[in-house]
C-alpha cells in the first residue's frame, strides 16, 4: 500500500442545489519520500486535496491514509496532533506572524513539536542566517517564503505540503524556493507535495498528478525528474 492513499475521496461544500463538489471521488497513491507535483487549472480541486491531506478539512466521503494512519477517521484533537507531529505546511502567501521575527516565526513551530530541529540551523540551511532578526515586513517575498518553509521544516515533518509556493514570487526567487524544496525532499527523504497550476514545475516531481473538475485524471511517475535550473518559466 502507498504511503499516502486517497480512496474515493469526495468533498462537498454546501447542500442541495447549491452544493459544490470540490473533490469528486479522488483516488491516488504517493510513495514515501517522493516529491509529488499536483497540477491542474484553478478550480480543479488541488487545494481541497491538499487541505484534506493536511488534516485542515474533513472529507465528505472516502478514506485517506497517511503512513498507515486513517486521517478520515480522526477526530479534531487527533487531527491537531497529526498536523503537529507529521505535517509541514507552506502557503502561497507565507502566513507568517507579522510581529514575530524570522527566527521567532520558526521557533513558533518548535513550541509545539517534540522532535523539532534547531531553528537557527534551519534558517542557516535556507540561507537566511543574516536575516534572522528581521520582521516579515522587512523581508522580500522569496525570503518570507523561505522562512515559511523553514518553519514547516523545523517540525521535522514526514510530510511537507506546499500550496502554490512560488505563486507570489518572481521567477528568480521562485527557482530558489523550488531548489530548496527539491533539496529537502532528496536530503531528508521527506515526502513533499507541491500543488501548482504551472505546468513547467511538473517536470521536477518524481510523480505528477493531474487534476480536472475535482478528480485525478492522470497519476504518472517521472523516471527522470528535471533539475530546477533546467526548467523554463
Amino acid at each position, binding site marked *: 500500500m502507498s504511503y499516502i492513499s486517497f480512496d474515493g475521496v469526495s468533498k462537498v461544500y454546501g447542500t442541495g442545489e447549491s452544493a459544490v463538489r470540490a473533490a469528486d471521488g479522488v483516488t491516488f497513491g504517493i510513495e514515501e519520500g517522493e516529491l509529488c507535483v499536483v497540477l491542474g487549472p484553478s478550480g480543479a480541486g488541488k487545494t481541497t486535496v491538499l*487541505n484534506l491531506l*493536511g488534516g*485542515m*478539512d474533513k472529507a465528505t466521503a472516502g478514506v485517506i491514509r497517511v503512513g498507515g494512519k486513517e486521517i478520515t477517521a480522526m477526530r479534531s*484533537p487527533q487531527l*491537531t*496532533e*497529526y*498536523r*503537529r*507531529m507529521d*505535517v509541514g*505546511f507552506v*502557503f*502561497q*502567501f507565507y*502566513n507568517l*506572524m*507579522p*510581529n*514575530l*521575527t524570522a527566527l*521567532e516565526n520558526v*521557533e*513558533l*513551530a518548535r*513550541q*509545539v*513539536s517534540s522532535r523539532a530541529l534547531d531553528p537557527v540551523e534551519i534558517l542557516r540551511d535556507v540561507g537566511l542566517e543574516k536575516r534572522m532578526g528581521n*520582521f*516579515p*515586513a*522587512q523581508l522580500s517575498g522569496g525570503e518570507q517564503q523561505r522562512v515559511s518553509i523553514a*518553519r514547516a521544516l523545523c*517540525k521535522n515533518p514526514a510530510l511537507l505540503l506546499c*500550496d*502554490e509556493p512560488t*505563486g507570489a514570487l518572481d521567477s528568480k526567487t521562485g527557482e530558489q524556493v523550488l531548489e530548496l524544496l527539491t533539496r529537502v525532499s532528496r536530503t531528508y527523504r521527506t515526502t513533499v507535495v507541491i500543488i501548482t497550476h504551472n505546468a513547467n514545475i511538473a517536470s521536477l516531481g518524481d510523480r505528477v498528478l493531474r487534476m480536472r473538475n475535482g478528480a485525478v485524471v492522470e497519476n504518472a511517475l517521472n523516471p527522470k525528474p528535471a533539475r530546477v535550473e533546467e526548467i523554463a518559466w
Partner: protein
Amino acid sequence: MVKAARRKSVLIRKLWRDMNRSAMQFAAIVLLCALGTWVFSGLDGTWRMIEVSSETYFAQTRLADFWVNVTSATKNDLDSLENTPGVAAVQARFSAEMDTPDLGDGVSLMVHAYQGAARINVPLVRQGEALAEYDRRGCMLDEQFAAAQGLSVGDSLTLTYNRAEWTFVIRGLILSSEQVITAKDVMPDPATYGYAVTNLDAMPGLPVNEALVALAPGADAAAAETAIQALLPRALVLTQRTHPSTQRTRSEVAMFRNLTYVFPILAFAVAAMIVSTTLTRMIENQRTQMGTLKALGYSRRKIRLHYLCYAFFPSLAGALMGLFVGRYTLPDLLYRMETSHYILPAKIRPPISLSEWGMTALMVLLSVVICLYAYRKAAREEAAALLRPKPPRAGSRVLLERWTSFWRRLGFNTKMIVRNIARNKGRTMVAMVGLLSCNMLIICAMGLQDSVAASVGDFYRGTVAYDLRADLDSSAGTLESYQNRVAAERVEGVMEMRVSLRYGGESRAVALTILSDDQRLLRLGKGNTSVPLPADGVAVSRKLSDVTGLAAGDAVEIWLPGDDEALRFTVSAVYETNIGQTVYLGRNLWEAQRKGAFQPTALFLKNPTALAVHRLSEADEVTDFKNPETQYRLTMTILDSTTAVFSLMYAAALGLAFVICYNMGLINFTERTRDYATLKVLGYHQREIRGLMMWENNLVTVLGAGLGVWPGILLTQVVLGVVRSENNVFYAYVTPVTVLLATGITCLFSVFIEWLITRKVRGIDMVEALKSVE
C-alpha cells in the same frame, strides 16, 4: 434622473447590507450612544422630576416664604407683618409638639392650629374632607402617621399639651408641603411622629406663636426678611432656605443635579471613545470598496455621505433610545426611592429638557465627526492605492527588548503577547480604559457604602461612649440626684434644646447641647478622644462649621426659644463629630448665663446594671431609651433605600466593561483570525491558542483594573463631596479589602468575557481563514 435615483438606492442597499453584516459592531455603536444619553437623560430627568413635583406641590399649597416663630404674637404684630413691603399674606397659627396619650409612649405629633381658614401651607386633603373654618371638634391628620397607627377618618384623636387635653374627630387625612420630610430625629418614622392640623379656636388659651408669611410674586425676599427681623427682633425667622423639610427637599434636587454632571460625563466620554475605535475600524475595513466606488466615478461627496450614514443612523437611533429609555427608567426608580423618605403627593414628569436634547444632538454630532475624521484618513489615497489591500502593520521591536537580559528571560508566548500589545496600542488602551472605568465605578459604589457606614459608625461607635441613653421629660430631677441613685459605672447628663444661632447677619436653627465640663461619654476630640468643654466659649460641630463657615474666634449669638435677650459667645473649638449641626456649651458657662438650672433632658449611662435600667424604665419622667447600636442601625437604614442606586452603578460598571471588552475582543479576534488559523495549521491545540489569548487579556485586565483603583478612590471623594447631607459629614473611606474585592469582581468579569471570545477559536475554519487573497 432615473439613473441618479437608481444609484442612490444601490448605495442605500449597500448600507443596509453592511450594517447587517457588521451587526455586532453597529449594535455596539447604538448601545454606546444609548448609554451616553441614557445616564444623562436619566439623572437630568430625575432632578427635574423631583423639582417639578415638589415645586408644583409647594405652589399648589402656597408654601410659606417665612416661618416667623415668636413666644406670642399680638394682633398688632400680625398687622405690622401684613403691612411689611413685599408681604402678600400672613397666616397666624400655634405650632407645637403634642403628646398622644392614647397611642402609647414615645408617640407625638407636630400640631398646627390655624387661626381662621388655612391660606398658607394649605393642607392637601387625601381622604375625608377639609377642616371647616369654624369646626372646633375636628382635626386633620398626617396620612402616613394615620396609616402607621391604623387611624382613619371618623376616629378620635386625643392630644395633650402642658397638662391640657383635647379630643378631636379626624375629619380628613392630609399631606403638608411643609412636611415633605417629617423627622423628629434623623429618620422619618411615621409610627412615632407625624403632624396634625386643627383650628386655633378649638384650643382656647393657646397663643399665636408662629406667623406664616407669603410674599407677593417678585418681591425682594432678602429685604422682606430684614424688615421682618427688624420688626420682631426676638423672632426666630426661618426662610425656605433654612426650613428643614423644604431645604432638604431642595438639596435633594441639587444633589441629583450635581450628579448629572459627574456620571454622565464619564459615561459620555467612554462611549465616545469606543464609538471612535469601532467606527474607525469599520471605515478602514471598507477601504477597497471606497476605492471601487471612486474608480466607478462616484463623486467624493456622495461617497463621503454614504460613509457618514454609518455613523449617523446608528448614533441617532442609539442616542434617541437612550434619551427616551433614560426618561422612563432612572427617574421613576430614583423617585420611588426618594419618596420612601420624602412624601410628595404626585409624580410629575417634566418635558424633555433642552440639555437632554442637546446631549442627544452632541452624541450624534460627535459620532459623525469621528466618522468624518476616520473617512478622511482612509480616503486620502488615490483610488488605485485604495484598491490594494492595506499591508498588515509591520511588527517591530518593543522598548522592553532593549533590556536584553530581562527580555531573554521571558517565555516565547510572553514575548509574542508583549509585541501584540505594543502593536495594537490604541485598542489595548481602549480595553484598559473599559476595565479601568469598570473597576473605578465598582470601587466608588462600594466605597460610598463603606464611607457612609464608617462615618455613621464613627459617631455611634466612636464618639458615643455610653451604652444607653435615657430621654427625660420636663419633670426630670437634677443630674446629681440620678448620679446618686442610678447604679452604673458612670452617669452623665445632657441638656438639649433647639435654639436660633445668629452670626454675621444670618440665622439658623441648630441644636444646643449642654454637657458637664468634665464629661467623658461623648468623645468629642480628634480621633474620638475625650476633651474638656471650652471654659471660655462654645464649640461647634464640624458640619455646622462647614455650612456656616464658623471657625474658632468667631462671635455668635444664641437665642433661646421665647427669650428676648441673646447669649453672646465666641467659638472656641470645632469638634470633629460626624453627625448633627450642634453647638456645644459647658455646664459651668451655661449656669453663669443665669438662664435657668442645668436640667438634663437625657442621661448617658455607661455600664448600667439591669436593675438600674429596669428602675429607670418605671420612672415617670423617662420617656425613651436609646441604644447607640440601635441608633446606628436605624441610621444605616437610610442606606437600604439607596441600594438601588448602587445596584445601578454596579450594573452600569459591568455593562460598560462588557460592551467595551467584548467589542474590543471581537475586533481583535477578527483581525487576528488568520494568525490563529496559522497556529491551528501548525498544530497548536485549541486550548493552547486560547491560552495565548487569555494570557494577553489577563495582562490587560490586571493593568486596567489596577489603574482603576486610584480613580475609584478619587471618584468616591468627588461623589461624597457632591452628595452632601444636611446633617452628616462623610469622609471617603475606601479600605484595601474593598479595593481587592472590586478588583476581583472586575477581573472575574473580564475572564468571563474572555471565555466568550476565546470560545470562538473552535469555530475558526483554517481553510477559509487562510484562503489566498486573490
